[in-house]
Structures are given as C-alpha cells and as structure tokens.
C-alpha cells in the first residue's frame, strides 16, 4: 500500500505552484534589451485532493485553472513549487518514471468532438492507452475495453466497440473519452469542463459517472466555470482569480457563506432556476486585468466592491489592499480565503 493511502494524506498535494510564460520580445525588443515580461498564469497555487473526493477548480477564463491542471499532469513545466502525487514529486521526476506515473493520472477534455480521433473505432480509442503502456494481452485488452465502456454506461459494449465517433451523439462521445481515461485504472482524473459542450439533457448522465467514480475511491479534479455544477457535484471548491486561489472550502459552505468579495460577486450573478428567486447582482465593472501586469497588493483590489465602496477605507485596510499581497488564511474550519478584510 502506498504511503498516502496508509497515513490518509491527500493523493494529490500542490504547493506554491508557479507557472509563467515568457512574452516574446520580438527582434527589436531583443536588440534594445527590453526587460523580459511574463504572463503570470499560475501564482503560488496550493490545493489538495484526497481519494474519493471531487474538488472543483472554478473561475473565469484566463484565471489559470487549466494551466494549473496541465502543470499537475506536467503537460506544462512548473517554474517553481511542488506537485506531489501519492508522495512522489511530479515536477522533477525523470521522464521514464513520469511515464509510469502518468498511467495513474488521466485527463478528459471539454470537447468530445475534438478529443476523439475520427478515424478510430471506439475499441481503438479506448484500448490505445493500454497499447501505449504495453498493458495486457490482446484478449485482456478487449476485456478491459468492454469493462470500461460498461462502467460509463455504454452497455452492452459490443454495440459500441465498432462504431466511429461520427456514429455517436455528443454525450456518447464524452462517455467514450471517459472510458479511455479509465481503462488504465487511474487514481486521479482531471476533468476539464467535461459537460460544457453538451446538451443539458445529457449533462447529468456524465456528471453522475464522475460522481460514481469518486464513490469508488477515484480522486477527481474538475475544472469548470459553472458554479451551479460545482455546487451540486463537488466536495470542495477552489475559486481562482488571476492566477491565485482566493477562496477554498467545503462546496456547500463556499456557496452558502462565501467569504471573499470576489466569490460573493461571482455567486451573486449566477442565474437561479426559480424565476421568483431574485438575488441582487453585484456586477463587477470592467474585466479581469491582464496577467502580464498583475496589480500590486491584493490582485483583486482594483475591482473589489469593498475597496470601491469605501468599506476598505473604513476598516483601515486600504493601504494593505493596495500594497500587501496575501496568502489564504483560515476563516472557518477547512475553509480559507485571502482577503485583508477577513
């Protein structure tokens, strides 16, 4: 048994993860020796996912949630920080060991129309990971493919194995993509917007599959911009803004008593299903700043309602908001936020 399973620690532990991309200076920039500039995609992100847990990473586009996931799987290289998967440091792992570890961490993407090879039959798509990793005999692979398809509700498997992607509906394609990610029996599944391209009628089916996998001990990191989905399916929610996690806690608690002003604003603008339920929207003006020129101090302060309303001044924290960057701190058990007002 692995160390993490024995001591009950998280399966995945990310600490102070930093990912930056260099902005090309161009020829003139290089000749004139202009200073190098960076896109600060992920800035000191820490999070943990336990076995049997679904953690949702939520935020607007460009907040760094997909880059965080890519760095966890080492699809992009972290600049600093650590990613520990079952007590193995992923960021510095030699490539042959990384390859072995990758069997245990899989990803599914947003668009099942793009993520499946149109020339591959379902059986080829689902068995490909087994072939790449040299797992099993031909007969064993066939059995594993059938088992994976049935786990995602494509049963009986014989009905689906010989089909091509164009013969499947969107929901069925996403099921095939999930089956291909499950065939290696991974411990961690990263789901990047798994239902946002699908019709509402089939979304619940896909989410129910992910939900069921968690019950069997799989750790799921779901990346989504849809707070209602995160609220309903995740155990914990991490809210990202401009490369940082600004609030993190049990899903229900983050939704019902959000502490960070950004989370509060975000939740206030999510349309509710019941026409009689009205929530006063706190609409933030303008747009998220560019991650090349990250604001000083709290990166949310230029758009923060507390700052704009004078509440920050009244609390005497205005100067700190402007100049002191801050980390997450406890606001309740298991619930952390990064705001000077808390």
């Amino acid at each position, binding site marked *: 048994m692995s160390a993490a399973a024995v001591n009950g620690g998280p399966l995945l532990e990310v600490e102070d993860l930093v990912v930056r991309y260099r902005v090309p200076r161009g020829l003139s920039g290089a000749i004139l020796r202009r200073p190098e500039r960076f896109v600060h995609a992920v800035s000191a992100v820490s999070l943990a996912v336990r076995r049997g847990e679904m953690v949702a990473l939520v935020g607007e586009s460009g907040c760094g949630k997909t880059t965080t996931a890519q760095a966890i799987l080492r699809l992009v290289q972290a600049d600093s920080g650590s990613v520990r998967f079952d007590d193995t440091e992923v960021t510095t792992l030699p490539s042959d060991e990384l390859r072995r570890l990758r069997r245990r961490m899989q990803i599914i993407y947003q668009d099942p129309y793009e993520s499946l090879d149109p020339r591959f039959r379902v059986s080829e798509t689902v068995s490909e990971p087994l072939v790449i990793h040299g797992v099993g005999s031909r007969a064993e692979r066939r059995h594993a493919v059938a088992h994976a398809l049935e786990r995602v509700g494509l049963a009986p498997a014989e009905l689906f194995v010989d089909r091509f992607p164009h013969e499947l509906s969107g929901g069925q394609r996403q099921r095939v993509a999930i089956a291909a990610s499950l065939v290696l029996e991974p411990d961690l599944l990263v789901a990047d917007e798994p239902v946002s391209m699908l019709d509402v009628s089939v979304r619940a089916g896909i989410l129910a599959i992910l939900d069921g996998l968690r019950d069997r001990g799989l750790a799921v990191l779901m990346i989504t911009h849809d707070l209602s989905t995160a609220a*309903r399916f995740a155990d914990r929610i991490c809210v990202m803004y401009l490369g940082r996690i600004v609030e993190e806690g049990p899903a229900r608690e983050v939704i019902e008593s959000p502490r960070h002003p950004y989370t509060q604003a975000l939740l206030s*603008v999510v349309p509710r*299903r019941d026409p009689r339920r009205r929530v006063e929207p706190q609409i933030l003006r303008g747009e998220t700043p560019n991650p090349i020129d990250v604001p000083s101090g709290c990166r949310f302060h230029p758009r923060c309602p507390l700052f704009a309303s004078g509440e920050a001044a009244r609390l005497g924290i205005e100067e700190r908001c402007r100049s002191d960057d801050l980390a997450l701190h406890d606001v309740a058990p298991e619930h952390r936020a990064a705001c000077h007002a808390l």
Partner: protein
Amino acid sequence: MTQPLLEVEDLNVWFDLPNGGQLHAVQGVSFAVPTGARLGMVGESGCGKTTTILALMGLLPPTASVSGRVLFDGVDVLEGGEETVAPYRWKDISMIFQGAMNAFDPVKRIGEQIVEPMELHGSASGREAAARVRELLETVGIPPERAKSYPHELSGGMRQRAAIAMALACSPRVLLADEPTTALDVMVQAQILELLMYLSNELGLALVFVTHDLPIVAQTCTHAAVMYAGKIVEQGPIDDLYHGARHPYTRLLWAATPDLESRDDVVSIPGVPPRLDVELRGCPFAARCDMTAERCTVERPELQVVGDGHVSACHFATTLEVVA
C-alpha cells in the same frame, strides 16, 4: 395584454435534403411578443429555435421553404418573400447572431462596421452616421473613441457589446438574440444581460432570446416557449412554466438543470429527439417521456390552453399533477 408587436402564426420551415427528402425543421410555430416583453425560446440543440428566428428575418438559405405569417405591427413581412422582408430587416426587426462577437471583419474598424446597416437602409450617413455610432457605443457601454478600434483590440465582452450596438443601429423595435451570452464568462454574461434588460425596459424593445440556458430565461424573460422536435410544446408566463409546468418535457428540462442553491438530484433525459425527415406518429416526446400512455404513441397532441396565456401540447396537460 397590449397589441403584440411581433406575431408569428403557423410558421413552418422545410429543408430540402440532398437525397430528395425534406426535413420539417419548424412545425406550425405560433407566438406573440408585445412591446417590452421578453420571450425566451429554449430546448435542446436541433429543436428548431435558431431556424425559427432566422425565418423571421428571412435569412434562411435557398434550400429552405417557409410557410406561415410573421406580422410586425400587424403587417405580414414574409408575404412577398425577400422583397417584403428586406425593408424590415435590421430596421424594425434586428438580430444578434450566435457567435456575433467573432463575426466582425478583422480588417475593418468597429465604427465602420456599425455604420453598415444604416447605410443599407439609408437612415444615416457621413457625419450624422458617425455621431450615431458614438451614441450607440455609449448606449452599450463602450467608450465612443473605441469606434476606431479593430475587433482584435476589444475583449470578448466588448465585441459582444459592439455586436449589440450594430443590431441597434437602425433603432429596431424587435431584437432577436441567438445565444447572446453563450461563450462569455459569468461576470461578462451578467453585464450583457443587464444591458439587454436595460434596452428592453428603457427603449421598450421586444426581445426574443434563444438559449439552451434555462436559468438565464428564468431570470431575464417575462415569457418562455419550450421547443421540441420543431414544435412549441409549452408556452406561457415564465413563472407558470417553472412553478406550474404542464408538459413533461418542460419539467424534465428544469430537473436536468443544476441550481446553485438546490440539493435536488439532477436528472438526465434519456434517449434523443426524433428525426425530422420522416413523418411522426403520436407525440414526438413519447419515446423519452416518463409518463407515456397508449394514446401518446398514436395520437399527436395539439396545444391546449391550461392557464392564462399558458398552453401545453400534452394529452395529460390538464390532469398532470401540479408540482412545485
């Protein structure tokens, strides 16, 4: 209820298929939108929502044939085909296309593109048109000097605002919006919805929203029409459609939609919508319905009145147990 500004009566659209067959995409759709009302059209992809509003604008491709009446202020605009609809298009009835923010010509300045519908209708030109562009940009919340910007210099939210400005160029009274916030983040979506609500309330625009996102309709529309397999299967005031839905499909759509504050199970709707290139027998939803009876598979249900301005096309519409 005031005289409807836009009235659609028994609209049908058929597409010719390469194999010689026909696909009956819109099947006898009727609805009315009064001044200042906001109608949300919802349903799964392929149910005919977009085809319906493209038909209202006379913008369907030549492979489509259309029947029915589209009355703007009492006048049938589709009667004489392109000839009768062209004077109304953009001028009285305007539209924001799905993905409009990505449809600007990348090598022309935003201001020049917003002027186009005005020039088409000869409603303004030269200095007058330039002044109108500045006014429109201000209305939609873009600093007027951005008229000189190229599309790539604006963010997605700004480009969507510019698309709305363009749709408003000739001061229309009906605005059709096809998935106006689909590719946008939730905060930018809130900004765009706030703008559309403002236009409806302040300018008295009649809005038709096509979307697959039910909570948006719940929070912004006065009425909703649920489409399924080319037909409206339920229509009425939004509150009645949520709290007193009279069609099983409407109920399942709500149940399939997660809500931020609800712990209800989220359901999926089994099966897929029927093909529209073959004649259907019985209720088009029967195969996926959770309460099918013998009658549903043989007899096609017609819309029946179930409340004030509320209709449903289910054989059991009046006997369905009222939930919520």
